[in-house]
């Protein structure tokens, strides 16, 4: 883009963004036509907005490092042993800083749904199965994607099903680096 010269009195124009070459408007502005503007329909225009964030996983970072290394980590209160299957830096009952523990790769479906629609970001992936998983030795659950079940044949029988963790090879440093499949599903 050309730099503005200090003595420029006419603003340089371009063809980026919303361009309108003619918008209907009264030719003459008098009392009547100004009053008629109250009946004008609204102008509605497109307004894109894009942001990039730097997202720090901060004290939860080891969890994601674990997933990249095919290890499922949780947090535990060092005094009470209360164990979180979704990382949490401090225990909500004692206020103690939690420590890292390895959680089992096998668990049970606690609740699930099949998303036939979704947020824009996930719409192309529908239908997909969301599930909350419970683990032996853990007091809280873990939200994950469940694969290896037919999303068009959802059944309450899925609750209580034994499932095991699988890890994607190319880690994206997201909680979806791990997902779950029925425990008896074959290794591919």
């Amino acid at each position, binding site marked *: 883009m050309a730099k503005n010269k200090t003595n420029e009195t006419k603003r340089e124009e371009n063809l980026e963004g919303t361009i309108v070459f003619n918008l209907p408007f009264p030719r003459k502005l008098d009392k009547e036509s100004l009053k008629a503007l109250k009946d004008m329909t609204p102008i509605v225009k497109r307004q894109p907005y894009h942001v990039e964030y730097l997202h720090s996983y901060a004290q939860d970072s080891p969890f994601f490092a674990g997933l990249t290394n095919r290890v499922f980590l949780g947090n535990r209160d060092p005094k009470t042993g209360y164990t979180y299957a979704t990382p949490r830096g401090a225990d909500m009952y004692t206020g103690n800083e939690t420590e890292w523990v390895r959680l089992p790769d096998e668990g049970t479906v606690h609740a699930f749904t099949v998303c036939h629609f979704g947020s824009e970001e996930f719409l192309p992936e529908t239908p997909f199965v969301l599930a909350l998983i419970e683990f032996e030795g853990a007091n809280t659950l873990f939200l994950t994607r469940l694969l290896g079940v037919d999303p068009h044949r959802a059944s309450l029988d899925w609750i209580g099903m034994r499932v095991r963790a699988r890890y994607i090879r190319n880690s994206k440093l997201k*909680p979806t680096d791990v997902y779950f499949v029925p425990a008896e599903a074959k290794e591919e």
Partner: protein
Amino acid sequence: MRPVYAVSGGVSKFAKARPDKTFQAVIKEAYDYAINDIGLDFKQFTEIVDGSVSSYFSDHFSRQLMAGIMAHDYLGLCPKPGHRVEGGGATGGICFQEAWKAVSSGYMDVCAAYGFETMSHVETWKGNEFIALASDVSFDYPVGGFYSGYYAMMVTRHMKEFGTTVEQLAAVSVKNYMNAFYNPYAQKHQRLSIKDVRNSPMVAWPLTRLDICVMSDGAAATILCSEEGLAKLEKAAGKRLPRVKVTGIGRGTDAMRMSDRPHDSYEKFMNSYALPHEKESRETQAYYKKLWSRGFRYPGVHSFRAGRMGSKQAYQMAGITDPLKEIDFVELHDAYTSSEIQTYEDMGLCRYGEGGPFAMSGKAFMPGIDYGLKLKNKPICPVNPSGGLIACGHPVGATGLMQAVFAIWQLQGTIKKHFKDAKLQIKDAKRGAIHSHAGTGTYVTVSILEKEK
């Protein structure tokens, strides 16, 4: 604490989109209505009002930060005190309670509480993405952030624990749509059958499109005042105003991540969460003991501890010990048919686990309306006589206030005047509850409004 009156309210037209007006102008529709209903004009009210609380949920939807002050200034309230509150879906309910606090504490004699949301500026699925950002962006959102999905997981657990059926869920939709048929403020006017609800497109199993509220543009406003404020308003209006008092407020919370919610014991439930009428009944204790022996834990992901705590506090303040018998109607946050069922239980209208049969019983239906359903019981406590969020719409920051407005009109006995139809007027309504809920049960407010004897 001073007594607080809810003297007036107004609701803008809720619609899928309101491109005709900026959010400030939509708020002004509701605000002007509330002022005019007292019998005052803008200038008279501006001289008396001490300040405002404004509410809207998402800065993303309007791509406008500090929209609260823009509304406050548009309404000519500068330089009087004001602030914006936000708490997800409960934003409007929190706004109402913050205005109550301002008056009750003696800080203000007259406080305007208004809220809005403009959800139409982005496409529906982008809107769902914004809403889903109200979940943990490290652990929940990236897995497939979608609120309907989160609530549907609660449903499958509720069904598994208690045998709740999809037809029971659908009955809530039939009821609320049918009620809304007589509410001109409702966004949707259609008569539905259970079959219609089940045959509509599946969104998140087992919730269909008709189990879920729609996105809306809209605003609502209420005016709260002290006894002194009421005297000032009445003097200016030159007439006595109907007296509706806020007799109880309560608010509860729970962990943002559903996965973090506790799974507590029977003893913990009885000591910390049970309502007086549950504690007093041996039969109920035996019922709950049986639930726990089957593996039920509280609140898990099937129940809203925040809703129970909000109810418990509000009931205690208002002196309610048996809510189903002592409350004449409830306007509650039915963003999903399932959350209405879960909320029956949280609010103690029935026991935990009995929400499904309660939904079908008829107890929460309006008298004198044909729903096309075979209902076993007579109406006792109509729930969402207005049509709720499902049919009225859910412009988030306005929703909790919309409930307050409808409750005020019910208790004033002025539904006919405002709806141009008396069908939804609950005869001799003396006490109502409003319930506002943030996803996924994180903040819940319950407020009790009563017609002064």
